């Protein structure tokens, strides 16, 4: 395999440019077929029966009445299930000729439960179970006792849910010994696992996965499961009936069981010296991930890895709520909110400007210079100097509407994942790139076309990209951890480079020079030294006759990192400018800026879109989002989109995005972008509200009731 690198800035024709996504037209015209849109001949509709109790023993399940309804073709229930542990726990399912009949049939499944005690409260540390996780550095007690100032506070961020617009689910068609499956997934190559194979009674290598478009995942769509531990119901029902089955979750279930980012609450003490240097960080945290894992607070103080004296005690509260799933930058938004709140409260206690405080303490991060540069750029973009004031300063406003600015900083890994790509060049000049990857909305197809086009000197139109299928498409990892663009860019660059070299070997004798004297550019194969001596791309490919060249490129993350094709670890800074009406408690976002580095940017337009999108998602969880549970019934009471509020067009204020470019950043290679900018928004908003109204609103989301309660309580933290 040829050694590859990225072209220098002045040589790039496609990489790094503002390019519209190639599948934009099919999406904007409704022509794109998502998994939910797949309608197969003779297809049945499945619906699931779920537990109305947060905790119960399953005594009996009687499906007779449901099975007798005309149009119902199969009824299934989980015979192994003895206990349900949250409202929405799947116990049975039906498949019927229409969605309406299926809906009616699930109401006729009679399940007898013996109700058991439940527990859904997650904001009380005394409910924690098991041994807490503990991380210690230095001597935190001694450092706190010697600190010039010690600031204590309690902060929190509730469970939120992903609310993917396309619900979780799939269309499944077991045909003889083969299974065709159209899932809404973040991981096409890994989707056809052993469990799914067993459900459909087929061999694992007989599963054909197809996901051309998917309507959002954000970390919640890695597995086939509708909910953690759930059986592959659509496959089971298709196997039973011999017909294709569509099973997509209804919206209430989608919100209650298919998301769930763990909550995080903390009591924190920060010790600092008079000049603002953080010397000690002492935190006790508690969190729920339902029955699953909870928030990992060990990454605090975040991202101040070099605070010398640290003690973090992380407790986990098991609740009868839907299981947790990864959410855009797992653990980081929580750690950021908790840490940044405590740090901004420390700055306020010291009567130190927040920007100065972060510039000073950037020394305690892994990348001080990056943060300092980004802080200065963000401050310029927001007009920080003219607007900034200390907490409680009359400059916040004389009337009931107070204005304030908040700052947060974050980090993320984002090393490109394992990925393989086949590039095929044919005698008619056509080029095809195939990868078993997926597009969650980042623009995967477009980035592959850019890299292959760049390598072969072609335009985007000259490259056909095929993704969304598992084997025989070359395998690529699931899209998690902001690893996709790094992974697929390297594998496609390598495949295209090798394919080009094979073509040049054919062309070189015809052009009377050695292959290494040739290059592909501007739709031509030409001599590097004499660019006017050229052959058109199509003429060159015609030399292949009926032969094709197919080469496979492989990204091995560690090797590619050494070769500076990809890298990990970025820094980002965000600042929010808000108005708070202290009479009504309403928070209005005026403006938010994001400054982010992510190495070499493949597509500037799509990369900016990721950052804008992350900011908006952050505004939603900062100001509105919360899974509200009723302690008595154990139910999520706002499992619909009216009361589980997302941000709308009128909520997002003015947004500005700046991506770091230039040789110092680009020479690191490609680094993922999807997650980092979603980390800071909640913290920046919380700090801005504290700066505006003079008191800390301890818990997200920053709803009017919380703001009013904090104002009534008073005090700095």
């Amino acid at each position, binding site marked *: 395999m040829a050694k590859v690198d990225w072209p220098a800035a002045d040589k790039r024709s496609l990489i790094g440019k503002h390019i*519209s*996504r190639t*599948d*934009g*037209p*099919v*999406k*904007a*015209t*409704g*022509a*794109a*077929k*998502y998994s*939910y*849109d797949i*309608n197969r001949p003779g297809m049945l*509709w499945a619906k699931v029966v779920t537990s109305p109790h947060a905790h119960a023993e399953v005594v009996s399940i009687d499906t007779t009445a449901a099975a007798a309804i005309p149009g119902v073709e199969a009824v299934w229930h989980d015979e192994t299930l003895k206990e349900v542990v949250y409202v929405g726990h799947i116990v049975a399912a039906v498949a019927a000729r*229409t*969605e*309406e009949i299926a809906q009616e049939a699930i109401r006729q499944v009679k399940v007898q439960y013996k109700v058991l005690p439940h527990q859904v409260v997650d904001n009380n540390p005394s409910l924690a179970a098991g041994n807490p996780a503990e991380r210690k550095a230095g001597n935190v007690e001694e450092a706190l006792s010697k600190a010039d100032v010690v600031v204590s506070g309690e902060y929190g961020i509730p469970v939120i849910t992903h*609310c*993917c*617009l*396309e*619900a979780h689910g799939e269309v499944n068609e077991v045909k003889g010994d083969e299974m065709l499956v159209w899932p809404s997934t973040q991981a096409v190559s890994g989707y056809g696992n052993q469990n799914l194979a067993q459900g459909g009674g087929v061999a694992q290598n007989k599963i054909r996965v197809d996901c051309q*478009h*998917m*309507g*959002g995942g*954000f970390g919640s769509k890695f597995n086939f499961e509708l909910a953690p531990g759930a059986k592959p119901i659509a496959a089971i029902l298709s196997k039973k009936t011999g017909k294709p089955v569509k099973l*997509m979750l*209804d*919206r209430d279930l989608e919100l209650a069981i298919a998301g769930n980012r763990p909550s995080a609450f903390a009591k924190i003490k920060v010790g600092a010296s008079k000049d603002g240097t953080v010397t000690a960080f002492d935190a006790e945290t508690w969190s729920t991930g339902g029955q699953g894992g909870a928030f990992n607070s060990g990454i605090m103080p975040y991202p101040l890895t070099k605070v010398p004296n640290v003690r973090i005690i992380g407790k986990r509260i098991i609740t009868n709520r839907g299981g947790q799933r990864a959410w855009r930058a797992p653990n980081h938004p929580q750690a950021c909110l908790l840490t940044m709140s405590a740090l901004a409260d420390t700055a306020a206690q010291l009567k130190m400007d927040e920007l100065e405080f972060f510039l000073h303490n950037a020394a305690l991060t892994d990348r001080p210079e990056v943060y300092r540069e980004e802080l200065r750029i963000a401050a310029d973009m927001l007009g920080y100097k003219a607007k900034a004031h200390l907490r409680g300063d009359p400059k916040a406003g004389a009337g009931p509407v107070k204005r304030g600015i908040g700052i947060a900083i974050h980090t993320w890994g984002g090393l490109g994942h394992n990925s393989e790509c086949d590039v095929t060049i044919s005698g008619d000049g056509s080029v095809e790139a195939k990868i078993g990857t997926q597009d*969650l*909305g*980042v*623009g995967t197809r477009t980035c592959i076309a850019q890299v292959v086009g760049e390598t072969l000197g072609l335009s985007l139109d000259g490259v056909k990209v095929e993704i969304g299928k598992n084997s025989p498409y070359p395998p690529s990892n699931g899209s998690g951890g902001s690893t996709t663009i790094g992974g697929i860019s390297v594998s496609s660059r390598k495949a295209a480079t090798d394919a080009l070299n094979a073509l040049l070997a054919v062309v070189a004798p015809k052009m009377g020079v050695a292959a290494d004297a040739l290059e592909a550019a501007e739709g031509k194969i030409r001599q590097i030294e004499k660019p006017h001596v050229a052959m058109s791309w199509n003429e060159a490919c015609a030399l292949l006759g009926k032969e094709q060249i197919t080469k496979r490129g492989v990204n091995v993350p560690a090797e590619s990192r050494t070769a500076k094709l990809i890298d990990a670890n970025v820094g980002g800074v965000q600042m929010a400018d808000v108005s708070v009406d202290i009479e009504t408690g309403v928070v209005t976002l005026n403006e938010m800026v994001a400054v982010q580095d992510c190495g070499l940017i493949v597509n500037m*337009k*799509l990369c*900016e*879109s*990721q950052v*804008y*999108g*992350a*900011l*908006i*998602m952050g505004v939603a969880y900062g100001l509105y989002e919360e899974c509200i549970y009723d302690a008595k019934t154990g139910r999520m009471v706002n499992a*619909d*989109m*009216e009361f589980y509020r*997302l*941000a*709308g*067009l*009128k909520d*997002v204020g003015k*947004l500005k995005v700046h991506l770091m470019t230039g040789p110092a950043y680009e020479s690191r290679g490609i680094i993922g972008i999807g997650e980092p900018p979603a980390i800071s928004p909640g913290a920046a908003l919380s700090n801005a509200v504290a700066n505006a109204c003079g008191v800390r609103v301890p818990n997200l989301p920053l709803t009017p009731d919380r703001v009013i309660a904090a104002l009534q309580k008073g005090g700095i933290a």
Partner: protein
Amino acid sequence: MTDNNVTSGVSRRGFLKGLGVGTVATGLIPSVAPETEAAEQRPALRGPGEIPITLKINGQNRQLNVEPRVTLLDALRNRLDLTGAKKVCDRGTCGACTVMVDGQPVYSCSMLAVEAEGRMITTVEGLGTPTQMTAVQKAFVKHDAQQCGFCTPGFVMACTAFLSSHPNPTLEEARAGLGGNLCRCGTYAGIMEAVLEAAKKGGA
């Protein structure tokens, strides 16, 4: 529409009067046309099983069988394979299912298919195609007003309808006028640029 299509033996007007919430309920159901006295006629009972109906969609008459309880959205998606309108909230909140009925934007999840009989239905499939996009669709692509794209057809329909009634919107008007649609990926920055540019280019 007229109440001839009402599917129960009770006329809507009589039903609403009975509840004493006529004006409020009319405001909540965007698809309801002004009531007329002619609507007082009692229509024949239809259903409860599947009944044949004809829907005029994108200029074509389409015949299908649906139970009266089937929404226009489910009829489009499940019976006619017109899957551009998406099912997301299914409760008239998110706008992903937006179509136009007699030129007005309507949440198709909140209208019954039988209610749409005799009316002009336009779905996203009736606007442009990938190779011949409308001005709104072109602007969405150019300004990257989409990521996963699941909300996009609904937004395109809402923008198209909005621009036909507000050819020169201000930023604030556009924000309010498109406030009935939600995006999870966060494409609002691109959507605002797209709608303002499409307005300059003469809208739909």
